[in-house]
């Protein structure tokens, strides 16, 4: 085992207090950025982007569906990498990142499925088809739910962390295999039907708002992740002096408001 002393800088980077205080300074900016981008992207996409020639207005759901699906998948990798860092360097903060990424990812995956289904009804006449990408998304949802369930199944926080980190890593190795097999399965069973994924060349006017929405979702993801991690930090570091200080100050603040 390596001596701990060589790694002090790394551990400071992983110090929950440092993270809490630094992100506290970023938060107002991140809130503003997220809201501005979301509003801009939505108004642009829902109001100004031109209609799709074939799908009409229903195609506007793409401005939610694509960014959300994007982050749902990227979130799984982030979760697994955080878990791996936790396993290798025993960094507390990275387990907190992993634990926080799981519910966000699960909700985003659900949203990807939901928006996909709602989009499917006017476009293909049905809410659900066993399309390769939809099926893969469904499997991703269950991978997220597995990590969440395992995390909370243990009495010991630490055992839960390590177990779900290993599961997330195993899932990461498996995701490409699952996606490839589902793709192959789909072509096997639906050789001659119409291709459902029809966005070969998107008009630039349609693409720009999509880009804005993708950036907005990244910003949203960062914001939500940071908020979840901060709540987690308070819970885990509840005995630390700086957290006690913080709690007392917040309490006095709210007590003062009550009296007024």
């Amino acid at each position, binding site marked *: 085992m390596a001596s701990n002393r060589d790694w002090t800088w790394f551990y400071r980077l992983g110090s929950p207090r440092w993270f809490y205080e630094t992100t506290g300074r970023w938060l107002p900016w991140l809130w503003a950025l997220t809201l501005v981008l979301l509003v801009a992207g939505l108004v642009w996409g829902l109001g100004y982007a031109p209609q799709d020639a074939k799908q009409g207005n229903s195609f506007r759901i793409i401005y939610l569906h694509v960014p959300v699906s994007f982050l749902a998948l990227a979130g799984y990798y982030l979760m697994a990498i955080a878990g791996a860092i936790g*396993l290798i360097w025993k960094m507390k903060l990275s387990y907190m990142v992993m634990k926080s990424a799981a519910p966000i990812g699960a909700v985003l995956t659900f949203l990807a499925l939901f928006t996909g289904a709602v989009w499917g009804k006017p476009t293909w006449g049905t809410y659900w088809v066993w399309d390769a990408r939809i099926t893969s998304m469904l*499997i991703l949802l*269950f*991978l997220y*739910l*597995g990590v969440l*369930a*395992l995390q909370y*199944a*243990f009495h*010991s926080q*630490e*055992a839960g962390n*390590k*177990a779900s980190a*290993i*599961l997330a*890593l*195993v*899932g990461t*190795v*498996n995701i490409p*295999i*699952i996606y*490839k*097999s*589902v793709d*192959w*399965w789909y072509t*096997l069973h639906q050789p001659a039907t119409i291709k459902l994924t029809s966005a070969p060349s998107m008009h630039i006017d349609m693409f720009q708002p999509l880009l804005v929405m993708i950036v907005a979702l990244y910003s949203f993801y960062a914001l939500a992740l940071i908020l979840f991690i901060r709540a987690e930090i308070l819970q885990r570091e509840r005995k630390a002096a700086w957290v006690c200080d913080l709690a007392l100050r917040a309490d006095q603040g709210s007590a003062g408001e009550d009296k007024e």
Partner: protein
Amino acid sequence: MSNIGFSAYLRRDLLLSYRRLGEAASPLIFFLLVSILIPLGVSPDPQRLAELAPGIIWVMALLATLLSTEGLFAADHQDGSLEQMLIAPQLLALPVLGKVTAHWLVTGLPLTLVSPLIGLMLSLPAVATVPMMASLALGTACLSLIGAVGAALTVSLRKGGLLLSILVIPLYIPVIIFGSAAVQTAVDGFNWLGPLSVLAAMLCAAIALCPWAIGGALRLVSSN
């Protein structure tokens, strides 16, 4: 017989199953029983059954393997021999692989051997019998390895069985896709070696990777 190495664990687990034959045979009986439910629940029409047979046989084999996976490390964890395995002077992947191999020999292999019987009962065309057995042999070995990762992760939980199935079923998906596809392509009269070789590749990857994941899970999680 001492507790060192792959073959020692393989032999001991086989001996333990042999002493408890009834327990060891239950996945097999489950496999047979549930397959009988299908004609009763769907239809006894041979043509419809033949159409569904590849999928049904594979889903049943998967569930039967899953059922027996829970106990893979649980007994060892309870009586303390898992701890002795962790501190035996050898690479942890070896005894792990020995135990998983024993598990496959006790569940996957018997399933493979009786599957022609089920195929017969579900009117599976005779041309598909060999590909079915080959795909089940390779596929159930994959299932045992992947399931063992889940079993190792949940070994210290008192009621890990249901959780285990939530964890591993998504990981089983590629195996069932290519397993039933091998049988289906044979029924359709195409070359079934393609999907079968993908299964073989998956098995190789699983043999190379799973023992490490299982060992890591046992070391990190079971002790807490």
